[in-house]
């Protein structure tokens, strides 16, 4: 093991965290991301039985989840290091599948609500120009958050994850906090 100490994308060793009304934002530093690509039109691989979903979708499996990023391309997420290693091996052995580790390519902020789906929906309305069915639970898509290209994953009614290029972590965090904080006076008014 290296003795170098990893740094969160926001420049702090510990995951960043903030609460605004019913919404809690947490930097997910444990997330490992593996990009899988195949030649478009060939069958999707099933690494360790994980289902790689179709366009616009996100699906959860045992110890890992996956979402579609483009024709013949997916991103696999897991927060279990051993499982990540097994997944990498499985992808390497799948015919025609290519692997690119993206764990450090993205910052991931988990946004959860303790007041049901309404605060998440209100937040989404201010962030992305997507219809509610395009960001319904089980959906994931790359889109624009204001001027920032991001991936939005609706993990559950009350749970959203936003991935942005790691270098733009500060801008994403600012954007999410500002937008979330503006929901608070509106909700209490």
């Amino acid at each position, binding site marked *: 093991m290296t003795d170098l100490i990893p740094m969160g994308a926001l420049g702090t060793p510990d995951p960043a965290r903030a609460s605004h009304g019913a919404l809690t934002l947490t930097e997910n530093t444990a997330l490992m991301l593996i990009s899988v690509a195949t030649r478009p039109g060939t069958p999707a691989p099933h690494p360790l039985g994980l289902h790689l979903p179709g*366009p*616009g979708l996100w699906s959860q499996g045992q110890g890992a989840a996956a979402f579609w990023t483009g*024709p013949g391309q997916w991103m696999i997420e897991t927060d279990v290091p051993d499982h990540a290693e097994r997944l990498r091996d499985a992808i390497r052995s799948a015919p025609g599948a290519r692997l690119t580790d993206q764990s450090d390519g993205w910052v991931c902020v988990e946004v959860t609500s303790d007041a049901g789906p309404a605060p998440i929906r209100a937040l989404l309305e201010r962030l992305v120009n997507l*219809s509610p069915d*395009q960001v319904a639970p089980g959906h994931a*898509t*790359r889109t624009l958050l204001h001027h920032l*290209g991001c991936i939005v994953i609706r993990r559950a009614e009350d749970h959203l994850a936003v991935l942005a290029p790691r270098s733009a972590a500060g801008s994403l965090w600012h954007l999410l906090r500002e937008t979330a904080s503006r929901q608070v006076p509106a909700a209490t008014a």
Partner: protein
Amino acid sequence: MLIPHPLLGLRDAQEFTYLGDAALLNRPDPAAGEAGFADYVYLRDNPAGVHRELWFHEQGDRSWLVVTRNTLTHEILGAELARDVKLGGTA
């Protein structure tokens, strides 16, 4: 505008980058020489009416699309993956 992405459905044009005439799919063979390439590189149709054009879903799935659009009304008559168009040889 809304672009009917063949895989992702209606998506706002904000997510796309525009390139222009889909004739860019028809890159000449090197044997066509400078004259053939000069046409390809410099001459484009820009019709007032129905036009087939290339759009890149840059803030999305990174697909290049061939979008058929009426440039007078902005009505969109269809969108296909450029890859399919090229492989199908219908460009």
